[in-house]
């Protein structure tokens, strides 16, 4: 497009975690004064790539060139010193410190061995001015709107004379007006010759600000558009693409009998609102949406783990709106949580103990339990549900797939009516996934009502007979299996 030379060039960048390859040789050039939108589904490798550029993660292979020189930052500090600033999705400001202190944290201007507060505030003020922000730099960060905080992060990067800024989902927490303010600043930064990598799930805003679009999928760059003005549908098709077919077992035919009904359910934190659906006996019901769409909060509320502010949950027509996990479990609604290691199992306790924790009442006689009885109960579950391991083994020693089976086993022993699985195969290698799918389908076949939340579109499409798509806490629509495909789901999810 121009004869200018790029400020940053990536060549054949690879990254592996153990045997798992997350980046397969990515090439990327960033020119001064342009906004490159980096797009892709969750797990496509966008974050890993930007972490490599900002020095948080080191590549396994490949090389980077920065302003004509070889570039291999050892840590974020080194990248910052070179002029690469990254603004993370979660803000990393210290609320109890002033704006100026936040801007200069860790590299305070010094004078005679002491912090030169005046120089610090002056330089912070000029940084804020450049962004058109009229706030005093000695004010505390606490209480500032998210949008303002976002701009302070950018001011922080600017005082470092950043030549390249990486913005990871900068508008995720912003309202419309704040977003527009941010876009103005981005335009201004462009005119100053700053290169910008812009990561976002909001496709409509990409058309507004991107000069170029790079789409990633499964750790590789799959397509590049030389303009930001590309139909959303085209982008989505590139994002979901066509990858290897995975093995999903045939779905059972659900009965006509409705087991679970959710009516106008809302959360107090507004993470989701006014959600209504019903699921039949023997049906696998999928829930899809982008990160932050409220899927996890919704299913956690249904299983009593998170609070509910309005609406109700009905089981066989009877209201069972849970106030705690205990309530839900008593009614036969169980949750396989999103974060296995923090919510699913106690890592340094044995498999047997982990299984027992959900079944202590059943195992004990008149309140008495013995290790032997726990062991016997667990061995039984381990055999029945195909966990590979011994009862005495620590859960932390197991593979992700087997840990997930432990979580399932502890619930299945209770013969639940509704099983809710949140990201059932996250962090589990592809080979072990199919055995989880088999378990899910088997459950449905036995007449259990199953809800599956997943960021992996292919997975939701593969196991669900209907799919609820959520977008920013709202119910964007429910698709039947016949109408559900990558594109229709993504279109609903990015509204």
């Amino acid at each position: 497009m121009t004869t200018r030379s790029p400020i940053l060039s990536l060549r054949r960048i690879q990254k592996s975690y153990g045997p798992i390859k997350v980046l397969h040789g990515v090439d990327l050039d960033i020119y001064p004064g342009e906004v490159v939108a980096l797009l892709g589904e969750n797990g496509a490798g966008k974050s890993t790539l930007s972490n490599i550029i900002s020095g948080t993660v080191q590549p396994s292979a490949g090389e980077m060139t920065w302003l004509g020189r070889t570039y291999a930052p050892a840590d974020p500090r080194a990248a910052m010193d070179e002029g690469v600033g990254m603004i993370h999705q979660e803000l990393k400001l210290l609320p109890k410190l002033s704006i100026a202190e936040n801007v200069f944290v860790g590299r305070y201007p010094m004078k005679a061995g002491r912090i030169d507060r005046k120089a610090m505030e002056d330089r912070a003020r000029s940084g804020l001015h450049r962004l058109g922000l009229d706030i005093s730099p000695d004010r505390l960060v606490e209480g500032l709107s998210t949008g303002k905080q976002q701009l302070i992060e950018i001011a922080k990067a600017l005082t470092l004379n950043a030549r390249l800024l990486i913005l990871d989902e900068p508008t995720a927490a912003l309202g419309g007006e704040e977003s527009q303010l941010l876009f103005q600043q981005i335009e201004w930064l462009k005119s100053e010759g700053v290169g910008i990598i812009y990561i976002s799930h909001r496709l409509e805003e990409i058309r507004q600000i991107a000069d170029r679009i790079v789409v990633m999928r499964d750790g590789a760059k799959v397509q590049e558009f030389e303009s930001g003005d590309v139909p959303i549908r085209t982008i989505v098709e590139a994002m979901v693409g066509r990858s290897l077919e995975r093995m999903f077992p045939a779905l059972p035919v659900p009965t006509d009998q409705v087991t679970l009904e959710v009516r106008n359910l809302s959360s107090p934190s507004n993470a989701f609102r006014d959600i209504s659906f019903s699921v039949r006996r023997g049906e696998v019901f999928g829930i899809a949406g982008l990160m932050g769409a409220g899927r996890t909060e919704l299913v956690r509320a249904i299983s009593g783990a998170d609070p509910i502010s309005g609406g109700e949950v009905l089981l066989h027509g009877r209201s069972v709106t849970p106030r705690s996990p205990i309530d839900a479990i008593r009614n036969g609604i169980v949750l396989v949580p999103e974060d296995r290691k923090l919510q699913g199992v106690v890592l340094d306790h044995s498999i047997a103990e982990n299984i027992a924790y959900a079944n202590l009442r059943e195992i004990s006689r008149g309140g008495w339990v013995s290790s032997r009885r726990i062991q016997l109960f667990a061995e039984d579950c381990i055999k029945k549900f195909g966990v590979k391991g011994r009862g005495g083994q620590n859960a932390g020693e197991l593979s992700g797939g087997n840990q997930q089976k432990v979580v399932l086993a502890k619930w299945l022993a209770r013969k639940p009516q509704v099983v809710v699985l949140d990201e059932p195969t996250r962090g589990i290698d592809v080979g072990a996934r199919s055995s989880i799918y088999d378990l899910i389908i088997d459950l449905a076949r036995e007449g259990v009502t199953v809800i599956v939340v997943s960021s992996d579109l292919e997975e939701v499409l593969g196991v669900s007979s209907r799919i609820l798509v959520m977008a920013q806490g709202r119910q964007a629509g429910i698709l039947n299996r016949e109408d559900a495909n990558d594109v229709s789901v993504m279109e609903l999810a990015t509204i």
Partner: protein
Amino acid sequence: MRAAVQEKQGTAVRQLPSLRGATGPLIGLIVLCLFLTFATDKFLSLRNFLNVLDQITVLGVMAVGMTFVILIGGIDLAVGSVMALAMMVLGYLNVVAGVPMGLAIPLALAAASLNGLIAGLLITRFNVPAFIATLAMMSISRGVANMITDGQQIIGFPAWFNMMAIVRFGGFVTLTVAVMIAVFILGLLYQRYRHGGRVLYAIGGNAEVARLAGINVQRATVLVYVVCSFLAGLSGMVLAARLDSVQPSSGVSYELDAIAAVVIGGTSLSGGTGGIGGTIIGVLIIGVLRNGLNLLSVSPFMQQVIIGAVIVLAVTAETYRKRK
């Protein structure tokens, strides 16, 4: 085949002492006893052993409650003050108000338990960190204990009360030692074989996992602090019997001794591992060490240094073993 046999033996050996990681402290205790047997001529005798038991009663009873608290990942800094409060309530009711012991003791224990109830509710309902909630209760209960007599001690319990700590039934244990042994046994049984005891491991291991598994974490937490305070009160009854008097300055820094005994016994401060078995050994180590150092005429100041060193040794050995 052979592997299977070994595996079986492995579990058998692991379950034989069934101390949940307290094998290290047990070895330490044995080494300590052997050393003192050869270093002094008075250590190895029934009389001295019974002395040691008498000396550890207060710490022993208190440390059982502290074990439960630490097992769920909590801490209770108030036990020393709660003990003093229970003692003062006992003295006031019995000596000043003339309430018979049969009623004064349960009331004193109830007063102690109330402290635990408040701490437990602060922690679960108002999300006050355990450290802060019990730090506050430590100050409050100490203050109340002092207010009862304006800082004065109370004497004049019935004669039989002191005899509980002196008369050795069947020439063997005093009633106070019997109380401690009963607490040990009940604690062990509860922790290992009761539904409610098992739950504590789940909560300490990961409270969120426990909650999602349908365990009533809040109720169990409150209960643990109530039991801990109750046992602190009970240790106060034991101390009152031993001293035949009560004073509001009793039990200062006892909470730290109790924590030390629990930690030496192999219970992790982060919760989820350890147990009463280890704590009993921890209490014995502290008791035997103090007794032995006295027999060796080591100064009390030096004793503090040595006990500090033992805490470091016990915990580093445990961490080192785990890392391996």
